[in-house]
């Protein structure tokens, strides 16, 4: 603790030119050393727990490595990748994942913006609205998925099929299942999107709206001409985070399929999981893992470069 408490003085000193002449570099060096010491635990943990396994995953993906036949491990180069990329399963799962991602993020953006406006501007019940929308944010994804599965599945006694007199269980059909997965995803994560957008809304100065109102701009015009352009960066950040998150969709799909009793709607994360932990095929599974990693990196690069989103550097 004593170290922590003496540094503010050191920081102040390095900033004054007088101190710079007198041993300023010494203090700067001490500050640098303390800075490194303090970030070291976090940096080491992050690097060790993600960096090492991903390298291990790359190495495994180049092997024939099947836990059921441990003696037959051998180096196969890009063989696993060729197997995955030439299978129609990978491409149909990827297509489905992209579809679920794009549709749910698009709906979330619209609903999230509406919710953020309500949270930001509501004349009455602002606290109530914020509290109510934090519940889907905080709820366990598995629980949320169960809420939707138990509502829609006839086999589980859901009220939706009973209400509409449906004769077929929607969770045994591909498209209805995808639709329910999207609804569950949208319900769970719209509040998060709204909170990120709310942060952006609070950056838009009220005076601008006032000035535009005086000049006769309608609420609609003010939204599109003032709010949206000023919120470009928060919107892109929210979209980036939600897109990456939706692309990794796993929990709700796993629950909706009810361990294979309902329609199996596979996404890439489910495919990877099945290869790794059900088939115990570490080689193929790792190749899928690495491909998912590459997809995520591509999405991030696309947002950061393509949309000119500046995320690194001084904050």
């Amino acid at each position, binding site marked *: 603790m004593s170290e922590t408490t003496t540094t503010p003085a050191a920081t102040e000193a390095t900033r004054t030119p007088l101190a710079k002449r007198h041993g300023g570099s010494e203090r700067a060096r001490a500050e*640098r050393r303390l800075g490194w010491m303090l970030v070291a635990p*976090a940096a080491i943990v*992050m690097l060790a727990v993600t960096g090492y396994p991903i390298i291990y995953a790359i190495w495994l993906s180049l092997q024939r490595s099947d836990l059921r036949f441990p003696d037959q491990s051998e180096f196969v180069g890009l063989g696993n990748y060729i197997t995955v990329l030439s299978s129609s399963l990978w491409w149909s799962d990827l297509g489905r994942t992209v579809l679920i991602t794009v549709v749910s993020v698009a709906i979330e953006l619209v609903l999230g913006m509406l919710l953020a406006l309500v949270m930001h501007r*509501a004349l009455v019940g602002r606290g109530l609205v*914020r509290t109510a929308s934090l519940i889907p944010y905080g709820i366990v994804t598995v629980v949320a998925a169960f809420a*939707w599965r138990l*509502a829609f599945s006839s086999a589980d006694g859901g009220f939706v099929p009973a209400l509409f007199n449906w004769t077929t269980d929607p969770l045994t059909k591909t498209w209805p299942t995808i639709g329910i997965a999207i609804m569950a995803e949208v319900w769970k994560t719209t509040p998060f999107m709204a909170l990120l957008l709310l942060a952006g809304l609070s950056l838009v100065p009220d005076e601008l709206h006032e000035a535009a109102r005086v000049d006769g701009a309608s609420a609609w015009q003010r939204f599109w001409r003032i709010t949206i352009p000023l919120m470009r960066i928060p919107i892109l950040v929210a979209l980036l985070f939600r897109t990456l998150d939706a692309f990794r969709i796993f929990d709700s799909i796993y629950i909706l399929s009810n361990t294979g009793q309902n329609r199996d709607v596979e996404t890439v994360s489910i495919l990877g999981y099945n290869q790794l932990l059900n088939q115990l095929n570490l080689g193929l599974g790792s190749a899928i*893992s690495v491909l998912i990693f590459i997809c995520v990196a591509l999405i991030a690069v696309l947002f950061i470069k393509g949309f000119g989103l500046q995320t690194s550097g001084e904050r």
Partner: protein
Amino acid sequence: MNRKVGRWVAADFVVLVFGLFPVLWIISLSLKTPADVGDGRLIPSEFSFDNYQGIFDQGVFTDALRNSIGIALISTVVAVAIAALAAYAISRLEFPGKGLVLASALAIAMFPPISIVGPLYELWRNIGLFDTWLGLIIPYMTFTLPLAIYTLSAFFREIPWELEQAAQVDGATPAQAFRKVILPLAAPGVFTTMILVFIFAWNDFVFAVSLTSTSAAQTVPAAISQFPGASQFQQPTGSIAAAAVIVTIPIIIMVLLFQRRIVAGLTAGAVKG
């Protein structure tokens, strides 16, 4: 003005229904008698606590609840402690490599957990961490570090650190100045971050279902996903609903008590992100 208020009340109502309906459905389901669980009615025809009784009689659920609470709490404390050191350095000190730390935190926030599940499974089995608390605490604290670092540095930047020196000028020892001046100012930010990290650890499913196999370390989300029915021919719907309500209670309590803080924490991190 009245029409305006009316419109906001309508908007509030829509949000309330949107936010709460699925939760109310699960609660209703959990209160049905085991015989009525499959009746498809929105409101139970007869209320009963049999489902709750049932899951608390099963060791599977109580063990999972214990694991969930323990693992989430330990991950939270460790992650926030490590992140607080880093966030202090990031918000207060000048040193080369700061940008790199922030960039790697951002990269991990985007990292797909499924990509390292395979290697961790293999590794944990080899070094004996498979199906242990530590085996889950390690990935949880890693994946919550970015969130914790960003949120804490946003809060730390707001603290008027000059007060510490002022207290020392007034005769306080450095330890007193830290304890009496800085700690009370930093505590709300640290507490908010702990809530956010806890929610993350409490929520995880990918690691929980891959890196555990028995009640030694299985958390509630993993346990409910594999609930057996009371008999082979009975769906475990009622037990699932009751267990789902139980794990949602802490979240609802936190949201009700700390709504303001959670919103502040999430938006603070987002503005800079």
